């Protein structure tokens, strides 16, 4: 065989092996989380509070509640900001101001998640103490650039004719934008926001010194809360066997949520196009 063919064959093998190299750990993680997770899963795990280490029993209801609170708060903060900023960039986004906004959105999307945690700490925790709100502010830093970009891209994908048809009917520009263009772009905006949500559900680093963690149920959003990823981090590094089991249970729940959001969004967006 000529060297050219040999090279080609080596390259083909390299490509196939690359794929296998990345797929094996994925399958292994999914299997390991599923097996260990199902073993830990029970009604008690989901609905009861943690017990002291070593005592057995108990659950992660505090973390589930915390994650729900954090996700809702984060979306309430970041969706309006991200959405309107995205509308601005798509509809009026020319000139220096737009360029600055676009570049800084880019910068924001690149910040490490732990730095977002520091931000939540210095602007909220320092003054008001650890709370769900501080956690949500930190998470918003990660969600906002994602939503800005999704909205901008979704609006830009709407054909110009639709806009012009609206304007030709004498509808004011802002109504055309808000009802017709956004209406047409809605599926993509929702899809992008769901993906942003899936991403923040799994983030623990920004919560370490903002939401802090809480072994009880929180009674208000101004109290510290736990979260599934935060609990996994803390329990995994503890020396207790039953905490490890609960970490796997939490990881299983978290993985199911995150992967199903991703798969559903994919399924629906692909079917539409």
């Amino acid at each position, binding site marked *: 065989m000529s060297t050219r063919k040999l*090279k*080609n064959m080596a*390259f*083909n093998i*390299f*490509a*196939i*092996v*690359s*794929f296998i190299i*990345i797929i094996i750990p*994925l399958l*292994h*993680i999914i299997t*390991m*989380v599923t097996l260990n997770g199902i073993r830990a899963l029970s009604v008690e795990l989901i609905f009861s509070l943690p017990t002291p280490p070593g005592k057995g029993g108990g659950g992660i209801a505090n973390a589930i509640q915390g994650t729900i609170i954090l996700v809702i708060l984060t979306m309430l903060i970041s969706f*309006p*900001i991200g*959405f*309107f*900023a995205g509308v*601005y960039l798509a509809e*009026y986004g020319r000139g220096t*101001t*737009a360029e600055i*906004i676009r*570049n*800084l959105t*880019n*910068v*924001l999307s*690149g*910040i*490490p998640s*732990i*730095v977002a945690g*520091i*931000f939540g700490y*210095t*602007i909220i925790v320092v003054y008001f103490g650890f709370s769900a709100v501080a956690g949500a502010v930190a998470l918003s*830093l990660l969600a*906002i650039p994602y939503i800005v970009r999704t909205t901008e891209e979704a609006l830009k994908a709407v054909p110009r004719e639709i806009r012009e048809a609206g304007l030709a009917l004498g509808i*004011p520009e*802002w109504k055309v934008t*808000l009802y017709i263009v956004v209406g047409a772009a809605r599926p993509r905006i929702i899809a992008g926001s769901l993906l942003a949500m899936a991403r923040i*559900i*799994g*983030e*623990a*680093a920004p919560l*370490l*010194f903002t939401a802090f963690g809480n072994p009880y149920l929180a009674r208000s959003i101004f109290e510290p809360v736990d979260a599934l*990823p935060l609990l996994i*981090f803390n329990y*995994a590094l503890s020396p207790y066997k039953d905490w490890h089991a609960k970490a796997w249970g939490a*990881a299983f729940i*978290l*993985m199911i949520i995150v*992967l199903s959001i*991703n798969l559903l969004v994919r399924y629906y967006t692909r079917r539409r196009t």
Partner: protein
Amino acid sequence: MKFSFDKAFKAITVIFGLLVVSIVTLLFYELLINSFYALKVFGINFFLGRVWSPIKNVFGALPFIYGTLFTATLALLVAIPLSIGIAVFLTEIAPKSVKEMLTTIVELIAAIPSVVIGLWGIFFLIPFVRIYLQKALSPFSFIPLFAGETSGFCYLTAILVLIFMITPIMTAICKEAFEHVPADLKEAMYALGATRYEVIRHITIPYTRTAIAAGIILAYGRALGETLAVTMVIGNRPNITLSLLSPGYTLAAVIANEFLEATKRLYISSLIGLGLILFIISFIVNLVGTLLLKRLGK
């Protein structure tokens, strides 16, 4: 002047756009002002000092900067060829019927929360590295990279985790770009008798270099800032060494571990200083990426 809804609406959107600008500005300001005390006390030694000791009240960031750049760079060096290989597999080799599905599977990796990967790292990868990989690497211990012994908590494990996390990000971008290479260019080359390797080497990769560069920058940024998965497996010891089998520490990891323990003002200020360094590094990477894309895009 008549009140105009159009102008009001535009004003609202501008305000939210500027809000994003002020958030980033505020973030930078907060990092700067809160780390100012540490920067004032240590000066340039904050960046170049090798000692990080809360007990002696001395804080130097060098081992963490080293750890961050070391892990992210090595992970990137492996992830680049790996992602190109996978992208080629997905676009050229995989049978059409399963292509979509395989692509989705690879992209799902990027969706797995980093703590879950960390959890797997602690309970599977650590023992795996300690028992098997260490043995496999022992004949190469004369190379500084593979010198020493490991408990499993080490640079190598952290780098493996990072490779796994950043490869799908790069792959997605490369694959997308590879699909947009005009078929006639490739076919012309095949018609001349070129092999697949030659087509990819001389057509696909040069044609998509902008996208590949973007993927590299994005992946590098992610690797530099990755916190928990790395914190859980790297061993958490400040260590400037070439040995992959030694424990290490990264900027993000030390902030995650020590922030809540820090009670003294100088200690907290120093930790926020590490956050500032991390922010600046990722800002520079981002900037270089943007400039590179602009140049390559021409």
